[in-house]
């Protein structure tokens, strides 16, 4: 069909590369998304405390990670963290190996990148929190910490869910850059396969479709979550 040759797809070796690639991509995305969301919440909490030096620190973090290319961040993380000389001994082979694998470096760098974006999102979510709600929480004896987790986070995350969806899909696509530091995710195996088969176009089309499907599932899931978490009648009055 259209002169495209997909006969290589019948090869079990390539099939297992693709499957492993997809799994690693999903793992990388899931891990770094979770950490990014946590960073976003804690960063926004930090900003809400209005401590001068903490504000400055968080702002600096956000500016650095938001205003530099994520590919650069990943390379930076890989080369600095791997040259720190943190080593561990493989219990099976007895060989020395770096403590932080390429996968771990990618995870850290993606978490920080996503986290910086998420801080902004949660911050704007918290800023729309009516002062009255905070005051009700205080008058019922909630501590700052309990108020944050039990009252402010549930309300603010609903408000910032649409921007969080953007951040997470963005982060998902950015995982493909981990191939550059040899993390065996989907993009990495794509390269392996076309280097082997010389079927560049065919491989690219297939990978493109896989990304479209995965990201669509993610945004569909997020939109369902949004619908599920909608507060009946909230935000309509006043």
């Amino acid at each position, binding site marked *: 069909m259209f002169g495209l040759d997909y006969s290589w797809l019948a090869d079990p070796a390539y099939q297992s590369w693709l499957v492993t690639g997809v799994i690693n991509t999903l793992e990388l995305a899931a891990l770094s998304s979770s950490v990014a969301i946590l960073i976003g919440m804690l960063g926004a909490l930090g900003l809400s405390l209005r401590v001068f030096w903490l504000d400055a620190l968080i702002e600096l973090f956000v500016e650095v990670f938001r205003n530099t290319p994520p590919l650069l961040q990943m390379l930076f993380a890989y080369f600095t963290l791997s040259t720190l000389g943190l080593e561990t001994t493989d219990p099976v082979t007895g060989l020395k190996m770096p403590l932080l694998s390429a996968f771990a470096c990618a995870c850290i760098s993606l978490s920080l990148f996503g986290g910086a974006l998420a801080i902004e999102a949660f911050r704007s979510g918290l800023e729309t929190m*009516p002062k*009255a*709600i905070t*005051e*009700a*929480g*205080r*008058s*019922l*004896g*909630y*501590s*700052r910490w*309990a108020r944050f987790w*039990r*009252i402010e986070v*549930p*309300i603010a995350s*609903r408000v910032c869910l649409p921007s969080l969806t953007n951040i997470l899909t963005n982060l998902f696509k950015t995982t493909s850059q981990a191939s550059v530091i040899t993390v065996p995710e989907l993009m990495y195996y794509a390269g392996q396969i076309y280097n082997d088969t010389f079927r560049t176009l065919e491989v690219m089309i297939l990978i493109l479709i896989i990304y479209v499907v995965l990201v669509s599932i993610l945004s569909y899931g997020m939109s369902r979550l949004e619908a599920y978490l909608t*507060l*009946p*009648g*909230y*935000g*309509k*009055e006043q």
Partner: protein
Amino acid sequence: MKRSEALIEIDNIHKSFGNFEVLKGISLSVNEGEAVCIIGPSGSGKSTVLRCINGLLPIDEGYIRVGKHRVHELRSEKEMRPLRHQVSMVFQQYNLFPHKTALENIMMAPIQVLGHERAEVEDRARKLLEKVRLGNKADSYPGMLSGGQQQRVAIARALAMQPEIILFDEVTAALDPETVKEVLLTIRELVDDGLTCILVTHEMKFAREVADRVCFTDRGLIVENAPPAELFDTPQDPRTREFLGQVL
């Protein structure tokens, strides 16, 4: 420790926001079981007094004692917790948590803050919903309830903390005239039950009927403090007379 036997004792409190002195030396004491209404023009510091009593706002100067708590000496939210257990507050804008149903709004703090047992709290919460005549709205979210219904849920939420004192801050000011009545009825029952209440209100008729004492505030001072019949019928201060002339 105590200067008098009153349940709440406020002595010469001052509070400023920036250069603007909102409270200029307020003194007031409230006995157990008493219902005290605070009336006065908007901006005279009524809400600020209530917020100072339960420690939501720190005062600049003066003495506040509620039961055994010397409020002006409490510094952290943790130190405030026993006070918050003893004193509940109901706000003008209801301030319900929008992500929780009516029942959950009532149950949250007793479980999460006071550590009471869930089954017992749920039982208490359902009874309170009945008491405020909203037994059929347990699973409704605040956004689905009318203002008057939300306010009654807020009153039930305050009661669920099993407080000795409730502070009401213009709780009917944002309601439609028809729903004001049902909320006032609920409050009147609490006063009749002997709960100690401080009510900031614009409902003069209600104040006259339920209050043991009425305080008139103007520009950060309590100008006059007397039993309702006295304050409404024979006001002593010209400022009280002028205010009553406008609102009655």
